[in-house]
């Protein structure tokens, strides 16, 4: 970086810094609107629309969201549990699989890749999948049914394979093999150390997948103490839509429906922690790793 800044570098920097700033602004504006909306009085949002700064400042929406703090804390706890366990196990399984199918000496690597990839194109739909977990494995109501189905995805396996093939040249593993290293040694000593960015990416994607999921709670939870956070919030939103759908069926006492500002507050509450977590992963995307260091 310190060598010298030629004119091309300067031009490049001007262009890239400007575009980055522009893009960041475009990307962040709706989020700011949501944030300010969550602090605005509900009536004001409806009559005057969204704004970048809260107009009629109010924390009413957050009071509503945190009305039952123990419930929301429980949902947070469960989500951390699912995310932690799922990401950990998933990362191990994905990395192992990706390692195997990236090995040239593994004769069936294409077959295995295909078997994995095939699942991303063909699927039997929700019903047999649901029956598999609820009837065959008898897992309805357990936490297993919530973390297990998202452990792996063909996309992440294939992405990981690309990372491994890109960051570990064949020559290195070949020479290690000649030195008598087994697969376990190669995997742990040679592949893992240079896989930082790859692990961070896949781990991030897995974690985001777990964090954002509500569907599996919706399908398999029978008790609200096992709900994922997103489902806890999402279900509150759905209550209002659903009750509208049954409008013809009258005399249904409706609980208070979440107002627009409450919906926004929920969005903030559910994404906030991820945004705080992101910088920890970020260090893998900020500074590179030199493969050369391992070679020596």
């Amino acid at each position, binding site marked *: 970086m310190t060598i010298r800044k030629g004119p091309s570098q300067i031009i490049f920097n001007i262009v890239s810094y400007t575009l980055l700033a522009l893009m960041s602004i475009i990307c962040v504006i709706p989020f700011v609107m949501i944030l300010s909306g969550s602090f605005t009085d*509900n*009536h004001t949002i*409806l*009559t005057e629309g969204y704004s970048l700064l809260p107009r009629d400042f109010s924390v009413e929406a957050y009071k509503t969201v945190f*009305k*039952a703090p123990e419930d929301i804390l429980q949902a947070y706890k469960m989500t951390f549990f699912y995310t932690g366990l799922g990401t950990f196990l998933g990362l191990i399984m994905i990395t192992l699989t990706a390692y195997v199918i990236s090995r040239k000496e593994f004769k*069936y690597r*294409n*077959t295995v890749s*295909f*078997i994995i990839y*095939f699942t991303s194109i*063909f699927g039997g739909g*929700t*019903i*047999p999948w*649901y*029956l598999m977990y*609820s*009837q*065959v494995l008898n897992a*309805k109501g357990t936490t297993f049914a919530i973390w297990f189905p998202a452990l792996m995805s063909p996309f992440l396996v294939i992405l990981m394979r690309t990372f491994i093939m890109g960051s570990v040249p064949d020559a290195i593993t070949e020479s290690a093999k000649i030195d008598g290293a087994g697969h376990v040694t190669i995997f742990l000593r040679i592949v893992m150390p240079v896989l930082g960015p790859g692990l961070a990416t896949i781990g991030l994607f897995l974690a985001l997948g777990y964090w954002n999921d*509500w569907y599996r709670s*919706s*399908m398999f939870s*029978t008790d*609200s103490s096992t709900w994922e956070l997103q*489902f806890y919030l*999402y*279900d509150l939103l*759905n*209550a*209002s*839509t*659903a*009750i*509208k*759908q*049954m*409008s*013809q*069926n*009258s*005399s*249904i*006492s*409706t*609980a208070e*429906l979440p*107002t*627009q500002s409450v919906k926004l507050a929920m969005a903030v509450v559910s994404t906030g922690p991820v945004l705080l977590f992101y910088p920890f992963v970020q260090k893998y995307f900020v500074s590179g790793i030199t493969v050369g260091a391992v070679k020596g």
Partner: protein
Amino acid sequence: MKNGKKLLALLLAGSMTLSLAACGSSASTESDKASTDTAATETATTDEAAAEDTASTGLDTSERVDLVFYVMGDAPADETVVEDALNEKLLERLNATIDFQFSTWTDFQQKYSLELTSGGADLIYIANWLNFKQLAKDGAFLELNDLLDNYGQGLKELCGDDMLNACSVNGEIYAVPACWPEYVSSGIKYREDLRAAYDLPVPDSLENVEAYLSGIKENLPNQGLLTSTTEESTGLQVAFDAAWLLNLKYASVTTNGLPYGLNALYETPSDVYDYWFSDDFVEDCKLMKKWADMGFWSRSALSDTNDSEAFTNGLCVMEPQGQNPSKYITSVSTFADAGQGWEAAYLAYGEVNGVIYPGHATQNGTAVVRGSKNPERAIAVLEALMTDAELNKLVQCGIEGTHYTINDEGFYESITDESGSAPFGYENFNTWNLRNTEYKLISKNDALLQDIFNRYTTLGEKTKFPNVDIYSGFAEDFSEYDAERTAVSNVMRQYLAPLQAGLVADVDAAVEEFRTKATEAGLEKVREGFKAQWIAYCDEYGYK
């Protein structure tokens, strides 16, 4: 060689899939067969056993049975407290327990049919908005005729034959309805304070609606009038919410008339006529265009996102779609709480066009799931829950003193905790299907509602078919023409919605285009199929 290997790999994977699928499926086929078979034999044996039982001892309660009752919505905070209280009594009486399972409001329709497919529950909530008749036709529920005869005499007495027959398909009873007559008549909810302030007419005809809305627009140019969109109108009758107002003009057999652009008047239900190809239709579309041009709703109305909050927050002054007396009562109390001097008023379409009747029996009901292993006990428990005063109050309102009190005026009042939410509110198990007029605890709002109902009952008695919802008993079987039906529904979205929202430049041309597209989509076939069934239905029940 490469090529061959790839193909081999491909087919290997394919065959593996096949074989895997084969073992998986054969396993599930087996188990499925087993379960359907046992279900079948069980019904058979229970029928026989039942016949013997009633002759001698009645229900066999020697073995404890744990039943699952699938209901809609979310669980109350005090679910287990009330369940325990219930089970204590049920164990004593019927040696059975009950566990309420909740669909939650997320994807509830999908989960409801999954629940029926996998057969995990014994008792299940049913309603016409959950496609009760179609599901019953497809065999999702157990036939109850014999079960009720043997174990549910009390239920039969409570509901009466008419109500039970209304829940039957092809002569088989499939559900036990709630027994609390209520009116769900559609109507217009509007702002009464504004009407009074500017001395505008009550919107009881299309002219008066126009006068009311334009009057407000003159006085308050920035006030939103209608936040109509397509949300309540995704069926096959109308395609835009404001078109519900046409109920002021036509006394149709049901709100918004028959589907597929057909209609029949309440006075002559079996006399089906064509609406979409009539001059009335063109005239109505022109009226809608006139209103759209007068700015009654946004030009972006078809994508409008304003939800039910619009009226409450004063963004619109009238809601002509999906309203009913109960929603009106809710608005009244919301406005009273807000204290801005706003007032709501309600006008049922039936008060204008003279077609008014209480909700159909299939509005709220209970059925036994086909896969249930203990249908006799399920019916017995249902009978206990509905006909026993103590149990009925317990399941509907919780424990007296803990969850609710009866105040001095004799009205129900729920007890809330310090955070302001009730651990077990009114009908908090969402068991609207267990309502029993005799034991139903009345809140203040219910009393207001009852006044309206009483008024409607008097009106309803004057109609040709006094206080009978003749349309909702009809279950359309569209399997013969479902592809065409789908295509027609698509054409409605694409061509009828902009017409009824008045967003087209030339109404006559747009009507022509809509008619052509609908015909191309197979409208004729759909209509013929529907008409034949509808007329047969009218004949069967004597609705001439």
